[in-house]
């Protein structure tokens, strides 16, 4: 059992890790074909995993409804929404699902008039959260927060026409903050992240990091 759960996955991780790392340096068409095949495997596995996800989602909400857990009424919307969308998706404007996807169907209408606006609504909430987060950060309780506040005021004013009206140097100062100290910090983080990502990949390839397999050893 340990052989199947640990050894085999570690061997696969090692072989595929080394192969795909070397594949990056080999432009030969054999190498390109391998990349295509492996990418297709990923898509295929992802396709099967959708069923696992759907099972988890429906099972969770069905349990909530059955046990009348607090907020179970919201769970009925999961079945309602999914049911209506699946029915219209399969109906496919009268051509049924095995035909090519049809234009102007009810399925499309649901997507563009329900899902897209609902997503946009959630996204728009971000503006309000940004204001409250900015208020909390810019209270200037520490030296760092004060520097952040001053830098933010310069950048915000430098990016709008009123900034130029206050001083012609504000946009220049804003550009300098963005392209020098901000860029330097960003690149510093990126270099650290890249080295960390490579080291983590190596630990996985060589089987040193195996927590993702479950358990600690």
């Amino acid at each position: 059992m340990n052989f199947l759960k640990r050894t085999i996955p570690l061997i696969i991780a090692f072989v595929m890790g080394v192969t795909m790392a070397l594949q990056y340096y080999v432009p030969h068409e054999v190498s390109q074909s391998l990349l295509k095949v492996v990418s297709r495997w990923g898509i295929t596995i992802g396709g099967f995993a959708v069923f696992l996800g759907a099972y988890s989602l429906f099972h969770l909400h069905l349990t909530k409804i059955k046990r009348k857990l607090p907020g179970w009424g919201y769970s009925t919307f999961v079945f309602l929404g999914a049911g209506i969308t699946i029915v219209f998706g399969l109906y496919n404007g009268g051509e049924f699902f095995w035909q090519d996807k049809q234009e102007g169907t009810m399925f499309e209408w649901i997507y563009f008039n329900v899902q897209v606006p609902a997503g946009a609504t959630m996204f728009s909430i971000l503006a309000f959260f940004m204001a409250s987060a900015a208020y909390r950060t810019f209270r200037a309780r520490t030296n760092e927060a004060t520097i952040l506040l001053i830098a933010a005021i310069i950048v915000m004013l430098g990016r709008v026409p009123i900034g130029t009206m206050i001083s012609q140097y504000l946009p220049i100062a804003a550009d300098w903050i963005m392209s020098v100290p901000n860029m330097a910090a960003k690149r510093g983080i990126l270099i650290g992240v890249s080295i960390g990502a490579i080291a983590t990949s190596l630990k996985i390839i060589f089987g040193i990091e195996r927590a993702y397999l479950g358990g600690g050893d």
Partner: protein
Amino acid sequence: MYNLPNILISTVFVFFCAFPVFAAGGKTLIPPTDFEAYDTPSDNGKGVSLRWPASPSESIDTEYVVFVSRNIDAPFVTEALRINSQTMYEDNSDFKYHYAEIDPENILRKSSAQNNQIRKKEKYYFKLAITSGSSIVETGKLASALPKSDWFDWKKLNNFVLMISFVALVLFFINHARKSPNLFIRKISGLDAIDEALGRATEMGKPALFVHGLNGMGSISTIAAVNILGKIAFRIAEYDTTLKVANIDPIVMSVSQEVVKESYMEAGRPDAYVEDNIFLAASEQFPYVAAVSGIMVREKPATNFFMGYFYAESLILAETGANTGAIQIAATDSYTQLPFFITTCDYTLIGEELYAASAYLSREPLLLGSLRAQDIGKGILIVALVVGTILTTLGVGFVSYLFMAG
């Protein structure tokens, strides 16, 4: 005896044969003096590189046209390339040479009726012409090339050497850690606070919520997040608290279920594991945000963990969590979202600290060894940056070529 039209035609013919120059709208078209085609180096065997010197006739309304054929004797009718004469200059040639890479097989297949016919590798012939309006003048030279597949991309040699060096460095320090396991690792307060945060959840009788970003299992940050999840699940099982893991990706969900289950078993509490607590909340970004925010508002988890790669949802999730009064610990390598987490969370692990978390929490010497290698790697890069900056300022630019992307 003399036919006037014939004399005119003959004169024009002789003129064009003798002088490959054509007057168009008062302007002469002078074709490039040279034209070469060769196999594109370090490619998949489909590319042919074309190179020719700039013509003195280049202007905004003149174009270069390259014709391709499989047969040297066949007419050159298929256009392989048509560009404005003042574009596609070869790098570092000071506008003196043009350079283009084309896929002749693909071009010929598209223009041919036998679209799907697979052909063996063969030589291609190219003819270059300069054109303006209806006038066209061909270069006298015919170029040919046979594309070949290569087994190594020499443009990536520097990258390969750096990769091998870093691999050697990591393996050396992992081996070193085996011999001397007491490596120093600096304090990461965000990870030290995990116990405190879980203790608070236990005292309050509220669940802890774990969110591992939007990326799939192919992302290193998600793997790092899952590694941390295993450690957190172990402590949660010991404390007998509820852990909820809201997923956006079904594969990440399956892996998380397995990891949490194993951690509960390792802690001797397999009975406390509830599979429904590691669930798929939604499969798209903003429905996921709505679902997780709803959980935070309704169930009021005492502790929220945001570990992995985040996009625009980071602030909505973290701000909602802050409003519910939860202790929040975030770890992300997404530098665009870091300011939002720093603003709204109690502790934030920045960038590479996300990858170091697993080693920090487990204190396994082998994992700690790789952290030392990371630090040495960063030290080398800092030295290269400083030395490279000084040398480039002094006019010596070879260091930048060493780190140039292929």
